[in-house]
């Protein structure tokens, strides 16, 4: 390793260490003004009363503060629940906003400095580590040592990384109040973009985007000489930065609804939720445009683009989840399971999630247009369940946290309902296929090993068959790592797309009777 790379790694670890330490810094002191400012009118009076015992007390850590807060708040709710007074229970969670208000810390005082010391150093270190890679070496993809690596072959480093990611996601989704320091750190940045203070989602989006950019640059180095890889990596970097991160924030700055123009239902599962529909319908012509745009993507965009290009146009060129998988997740792509058994599980799971998302959405829309007489608040329960089990646990915790255990496309392969929809179109009505180059396959297995979707590419290649599979996201890595030039991603006529050859070409002994 070059010296500059060692320095990069060192800086990255410092940045990561600071980032991990920040939540534990500072003190918390709550007062009545903070409660008044951060609670809804209907809860204000009650909250002011409930939290009286903790006013003006100084807590030296987020654990102490949140435990005091939860005790008072929990006591109140528990008493009501015990009496069965369900409509008086306060379901809103104010721990995050009040925690953020109560916080005083060096991070909050000097956010830019701390942002540099944490995220800044990690990014800088990442760049220093990645940019000099393969310098002075001839072009070509080197998968050297991947299965000897403690990081990329489920060694202790991989386990540690996976555990860290899982922990981060669990806290982010269900205990964000512990992260208020980090969120306060990115407040000034959020003010610049949207004119509003940051939420935990802004923090997440910011880190997510930077991770895609830094690891995207790693992709440029690793796959140098391969134009397809370069272009699609640039594409996911662009769509994440512009469409997923910047444009929605700027829309908010302009008093428009927050909207990611490239997110498509059913991945964007709350697109038809009542609060979303309300925000579109009350958002004037821009809101109306968003609603129509979103619907057009679902009913025209997906089938038409997938017909012409396969699902790759979305999954490995545009999608944010795909973007993370293809950049941050690339070092783990070889860990996907290729067995027939996992393929079977995959089909049940992913199509099951699609059915669930569709049923939930139909009920939601029917309920919405019947002014909620149909199911009342039952759809809310459904939304809670889906949001918890699929939106957070599956897509987030498992989807990313499991990179070092099961490969980088666990969510895309087993869970994403949009991938299921795109996949059905790709399998049955598309011009896309991976062509096999006659008899040139030597069954070496590089293609299957590096398929992030767990497709046993070799199974098809060695019999001269084209690969037409609903799960293929068209990342093109099978073709890139093939040592014999056997695989090519192509869009072409539907005729002959699925080919069942009786014999591989090159052998004239066997006559094929027409």
């Amino acid at each position, binding site marked *: 390793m070059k010296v500059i790379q060692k320095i990069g790694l060192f800086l990255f670890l410092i940045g990561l260490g600071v980032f991990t330490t920040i939540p534990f810094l500072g003190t918390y002191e709550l007062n009545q003004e903070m409660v008044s400012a951060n609670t809804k009118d209907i809860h204000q009076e009650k909250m002011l009363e409930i939290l009286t015992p903790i006013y003006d007390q100084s807590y030296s850590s987020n654990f102490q503060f949140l435990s005091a807060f939860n005790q008072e708040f929990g006591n109140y709710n528990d008493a009501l629940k015990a009496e069965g007074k369900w409509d008086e229970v306060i379901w809103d969670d104010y721990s995050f906003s009040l925690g953020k208000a109560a916080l005083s810390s060096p991070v909050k005082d000097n956010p830019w400095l701390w942002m540099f010391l944490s995220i800044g150093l990690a990014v800088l270190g990442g760049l220093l580590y990645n940019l000099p890679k393969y310098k002075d070496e*001839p*072009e*070509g993809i080197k*998968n*050297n*040592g*991947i*299965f*000897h*690596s403690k990081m990329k072959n489920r060694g202790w480093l991989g386990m540690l990384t996976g555990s860290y990611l899982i922990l981060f996601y669990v806290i982010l989704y269900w205990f964000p109040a512990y992260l208020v320091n980090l969120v306060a750190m990115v407040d000034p940045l959020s003010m610049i973009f949207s004119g509003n203070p940051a939420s935990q989602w802004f923090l997440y989006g910011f880190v997510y985007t930077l991770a895609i950019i830094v690891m995207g640059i790693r992709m440029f180095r690793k796959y140098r000489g*391969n*134009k*397809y890889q370069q*272009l699609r990596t640039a594409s996911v970097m662009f769509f994440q930065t512009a469409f997923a991160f910047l444009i929605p924030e700027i829309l908010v700055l302009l008093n428009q609804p927050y909207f990611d123009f490239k997110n498509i239902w059913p991945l964007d599962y709350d697109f038809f939720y009542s609060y979303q529909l309300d925000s579109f319908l009350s958002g004037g012509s821009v809101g109306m445009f968003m609603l129509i745009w979103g619907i057009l993507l679902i009913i025209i965009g997906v089938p038409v683009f997938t017909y012409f290009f396969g699902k790759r146009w979305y999954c490995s060129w545009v999608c944010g989840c795909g973007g993370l998988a293809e950049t941050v997740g690339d070092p783990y792509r070889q860990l996907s399971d290729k*067995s*027939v058994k996992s393929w079977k599980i995959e089909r049940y799971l992913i199509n099951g999630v699609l059915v669930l998302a569709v049923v939930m959405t139909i009920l939601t829309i029917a309920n919405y247009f019947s002014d909620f007489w149909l199911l009342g608040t039952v759809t809310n329960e459904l939304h809670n369940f889906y949001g918890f089990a699929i939106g957070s646990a599956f897509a987030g915790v498992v989807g990313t946290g499991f990179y070092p255990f099961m490969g980088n496309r666990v969510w895309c392969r087993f869970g994403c309902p949009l991938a299921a929809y795109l996949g059905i179109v790709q399998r049955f009505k598309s011009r896309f296929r991976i*062509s096999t*180059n*006659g*008899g*040139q396959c*030597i*069954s*070496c*297995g*590089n293609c*299957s*090993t590096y398929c992030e979707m767990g497709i046993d590419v*070799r*199974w098809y290649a*060695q019999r001269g068959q084209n690969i037409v599979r609903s799960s293929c996201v068209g990342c*093109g890595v099978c*073709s*890139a790592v093939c*040592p*014999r*030039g056997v695989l*090519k*991603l*192509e869009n072409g006529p539907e005729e002959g797309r699925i080919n069942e050859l009786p*014999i*591989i*070409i*090159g*052998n*004239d*002994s*066997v006559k094929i009777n027409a």
Partner: protein
Amino acid sequence: MNPNRHILIIGNGIAGVTLARHIRKRDSSVKITLVSGESKYFFSRTALMYVFMGHMKFEHTQPYENFFWEKNRIDLKEGWVQSVDFDEKSLKLQSGESLFYDQLVIASGSKPNKFGWPGQDLKGVQGLYSKQDLELMEENTKEVKRAVIVGGGLIGIEMAEMLAYKKIPVTFLVRETSFWRNVLPKEESEMISKHVREHHIDLRLETELAEIIDDGNGKVKAVKTNHGEEIPCEFVGLTAGVTPNVDFLRNSKLEVNRGVVVNSKFETNIPDVYSIGDCAEFQVKPAADRKNIEQVWYTGRMHGETLALTLTGQATDYQAGVWFNSAKFLDVEYQTYGTVPADWKEEEFQSFYWEHPQKKVAFRMLMDTKGAIVGVNNFGFRLKHEFFDKAIKEKWTGQKVISSLRKANFDPEFFAPFYIEIQKAFLKEFGGDFKPEKRSFIQKLFGASV
């Protein structure tokens, strides 16, 4: 034929396994057994280097999941064959166990050549062919400061790459004037030699091994070349080709020359005994441009496909189709279709050669005196097998091939359209009534520069 007969196949490499699969496709009742001492499950020999370099784990080299064999009722027997009793129709394993057969197929593959060099059996000296060789190489390269590879062929270059992965400096002794010059024409061979040196491999051309020197404890300490130079090293790779692995069959009734002698139906001199793959030696070459012994992955597969027909009641002669092959020299991919010998006479063939001024990209097409395509070599970009199989079979003119070269392109999308440069170069040298392709809009917008 007895529908419940037992077909016993010695060797579970690509030839034996292809045979077993194709028999099973056509006949659901015969009993099939694959015998191998090397590995219970079929694996891709060509991928051993990737295991060494950490690209894959050994199980990734196995093309079929373990349940496949039972599901297809192909019995796997682990063991090395010691001898065959052709009268009794039985064979004996080294473990002492006996197996009986009704029909026997010998597909026992190759072993590395050793030409009787002094010291060739020292510790630290080895070839690379089998799974055991790979394991030995992992053992042998643990504490090596310098390695020497003897023989400039495909396994040699693989071994050089493997050692480079371990950051072991490599000296590569090649008998010819440039790398693989006995197979590649001069220009291609020189381009690859340059590429080998780019990877800091110490390529010694026109150099042969004279002897391997013992360190006094039965281990290699150095090699001596035919120029008298002594190169200190702790590892020697012997990669001067392979030879049929048939020693266990010598001194029996079976006719064995360099390999097991077979006719065009893979029949040996003994009824119900056949041989395919690397270890079979044809009495008559399958075609003018073929050898008596075919030691390539693809030919092993075709032998298996063909013999499966004979063994399931459709007696079939092996008919060599248009030759094809491929390899990868470090970062440079190579494919070939048809016949391109290392050397030829000018009155025999016309040659068209194009090489990229900087990149390791090259294309050669040989045409006969009438201008019909005979074969191509391509390096650093990919061409379609189907296209050239047809063009060569149908004897297309060189001009027709080059003018439709875009259709033969198999490079990934957005790659540089080298075929346009090739078309321009062809027109300049040979003329012709076609125009070079234009770059498409997408190529102009995103395409890599040629």
